[in-house]
């Protein structure tokens, strides 16, 4: 599997001044967009997509990965400084981070957040390097039944965790899948929901749909709070990194959160926010002083921040090996690979080993550089929190318009962007989560093709779906995932009673 020649090629490309510049630019841009409330990693990647069309694959992926990692970290800066999470992944950080900031310990809080993010990010890259080639070699043997099982798994899991209401989550997931049935039927060429326009022959385009869903809907929601003003004290913003002794005392929380974040990232459809919440609640549950959480303690910052950055490497595992996105941001990243003419999946490892090595090494470098850039730029970057929403809203809308138009010079794509944006706005206002909608939209074609192929192979028998050891294992894991929570809480309840 190891290819020295490909490794040397990727090292050569990574050492190119343009790639290094893009790496730094990616981190800075990601941090800036992450800081701005509401604009998370999917939007950050989506807004940078047009700039990558004319680049080579490796530099463009390095830029996008830098943005992805730094945007997740950037969200914690506004969470700590003003109590407004820049991204969903930083919501769990608000509770303790902002309390520490208000107590005059903002520098310490930022130090914990930066350190946790770096450690979580590096841990997940190690897991990505180890797991993804193994999974890719296994995935080569996957047939329609296995891909069906993975798609069902991803969809059900994201529906379960994305919102408070299961029927509403499932409605969004299936709506996303339904929208992928528009266009020519890939198996027999039938026109489906094309409404007489040739634009729809290839279905609704992925990138405009995702950018609309995330960026335009956020612009519309952001416009509602345009008159709110943000003020905070800059004095407390000098980053103070925790010492080794302090970190040694937090090693259990860091290690556990890194594992949680990576695993949650690997589960198709999960995002950084889920990883952060899970790690926070797990740290609190295992703590001897759970009542201290939420009062401004380092554990309350380091647990979610380690986990949310650990989801980055984790999310890339299914994205690169199976073509199934591990998070909404990874779904946009998957779109970037498609634009570059690459098909994410197990064959990517044999077809483009240089790209794989570049991604692995690039992510390592990104996480290490993020430490230095974070230390140097945090005070300047934090000033961006005060940029009025009224300036951000029209600028992001214009960037979305121009970015999507520049992909194919198509007004139809801009129309899809608008349509998806309005749909996203309406459903978000009604309390639906857009994560299942986006994941359903990405998984839809895989789900339909694998279902129809499986049924055709099995002569219409649904029982044959379970006649695959890998598929059966995935379904069993899904059942366990669903039942695990209720079983554990029942056991805890019984043990408390006893």
């Amino acid at each position, binding site marked *: 599997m190891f290819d020295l020649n490909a490794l040397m090629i990727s090292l050569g490309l990574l050492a190119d001044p343009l790639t290094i510049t893009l790496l730094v630019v990616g981190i800075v841009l990601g941090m800036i967009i992450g800081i701005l409330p509401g604009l998370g990693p999917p939007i950050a990647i989506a807004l940078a997509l*047009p*700039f990558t069309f*004319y680049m080579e694959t490796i530099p463009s992926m390095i830029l996008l990965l830098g943005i992805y990692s730094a945007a997740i970290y950037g969200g914690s800066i506004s969470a700590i400084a003003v109590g407004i999470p820049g991204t969903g992944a930083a919501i769990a950080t608000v509770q303790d981070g902002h309390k520490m900031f208000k107590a005059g310990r903002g520098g310490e809080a930022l130090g914990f957040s930066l350190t946790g993010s770096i450690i979580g990010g590096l841990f997940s890259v190690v897991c990505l390097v180890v797991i993804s080639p193994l999974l890719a070699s296994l995935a080569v043997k996957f047939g329609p039944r296995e891909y069906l099982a993975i798609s069902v798994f991803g969809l059900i899991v994201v529906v379960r965790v994305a*919102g*408070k*209401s299961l*029927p*509403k989550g*499932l*409605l969004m997931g*299936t709506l996303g*899948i*339904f929208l992928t*049935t528009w266009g020519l*039927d890939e*198996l*027999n*060429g*039938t*026109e*489906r*929901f094309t409404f007489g326009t040739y634009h729809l022959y290839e279905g609704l385009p992925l990138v405009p749909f995702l950018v609309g869903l995330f960026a*335009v809907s956020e*612009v*519309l*929601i952001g*416009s*509602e*709070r*345009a*008159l709110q003003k943000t003020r905070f004290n800059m004095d407390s913003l000098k980053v103070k990194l925790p010492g080794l002794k302090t970190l040694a005392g937090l090693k259990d929380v860091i290690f556990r959160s890194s594992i949680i974040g990576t695993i949650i990232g690997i589960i198709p459809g999960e995002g950084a926010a889920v990883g952060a919440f899970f790690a926070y609640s797990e740290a609190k549950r295992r703590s001897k002083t759970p009542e201290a959480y939420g009062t401004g303690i380092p554990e309350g910052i380091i647990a979610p921040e380690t986990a949310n950055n650990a989801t980055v490497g984790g999310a890339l595992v299914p994205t690169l090996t199976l073509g199934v996105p591990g998070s909404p941001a990874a779904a946009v990243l998957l779109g970037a690979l498609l634009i570059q003419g690459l098909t994410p999946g197990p064959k990517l490892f044999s077809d483009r080993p240089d790209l794989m090595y570049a991604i692995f090494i690039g992510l390592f470098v990104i996480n290490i550089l993020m430490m230095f850039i974070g230390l140097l730029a945090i005070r300047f970057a934090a000033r961006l929190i005060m940029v*009025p929403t*009224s*300036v951000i*809203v*029209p*600028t992001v*809308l*214009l*960037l979305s*318009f*121009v970015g999507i*138009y*520049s992909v194919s*010079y198509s*007004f139809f794509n801009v*129309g899809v962007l*608008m349509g998806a944006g*309005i749909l996203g*706005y*309406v459903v978000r*206002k*009604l*309390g639906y989560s857009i994560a299942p909608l986006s994941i359903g939209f990405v998984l839809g074609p895989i789900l*339909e093709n694998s*279902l*129809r*192929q499986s*049924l*055709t192979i099995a002569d219409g028998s649904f029982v044959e779906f379970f006649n695959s050891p890998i598929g059966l294992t995935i379904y069993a894991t899904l059942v366990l995932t669903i039942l695990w929570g209720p079983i554990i809480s029942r056991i805890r309840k019984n043990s408390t009673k006893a």
Partner: protein
Amino acid sequence: MLSQRIANTVFALLVILISFYFAWIAEGFEASGLLASSGLPSKFFPQLILGTIIACAIITCYLYGIKGEAGGDAGETVFDNAGDARRGILMLIVSVVCYLSWRSFGFIPMAILLGPLSLLAMGIKQPYIYATVWGLTGCVYLIFTYLLGIQLV
């Protein structure tokens, strides 16, 4: 400002109606030639998914109708206040108008209008914000046109 219960019930009912309409359209899907008999019919998957959407929407309707909430949003409203509603809806209209004006009159008129119209929709009065947004619009235009070589027409 508009309870989640009413808004979600109306939305779910609309979803049911539209899904039935799409399921009816799907009945007419036909493959031609040699491919016509290959595998499952094209309508199978869309109708399966539409059936699931309808089932979810019916459950949502039931939850809001009987329990008054789904996922703990009892008593919540779609907009916090009238100002938020006005800004959000006006911004939505502005974005659609700008898209249509781009198609009809070209990029530059749209780009000039987008900033001020958005700011008016949001109720912004400070002139320096208008100037900043116009400046940023100019930067976006210059970057895309001269740096990336994209023809914005």
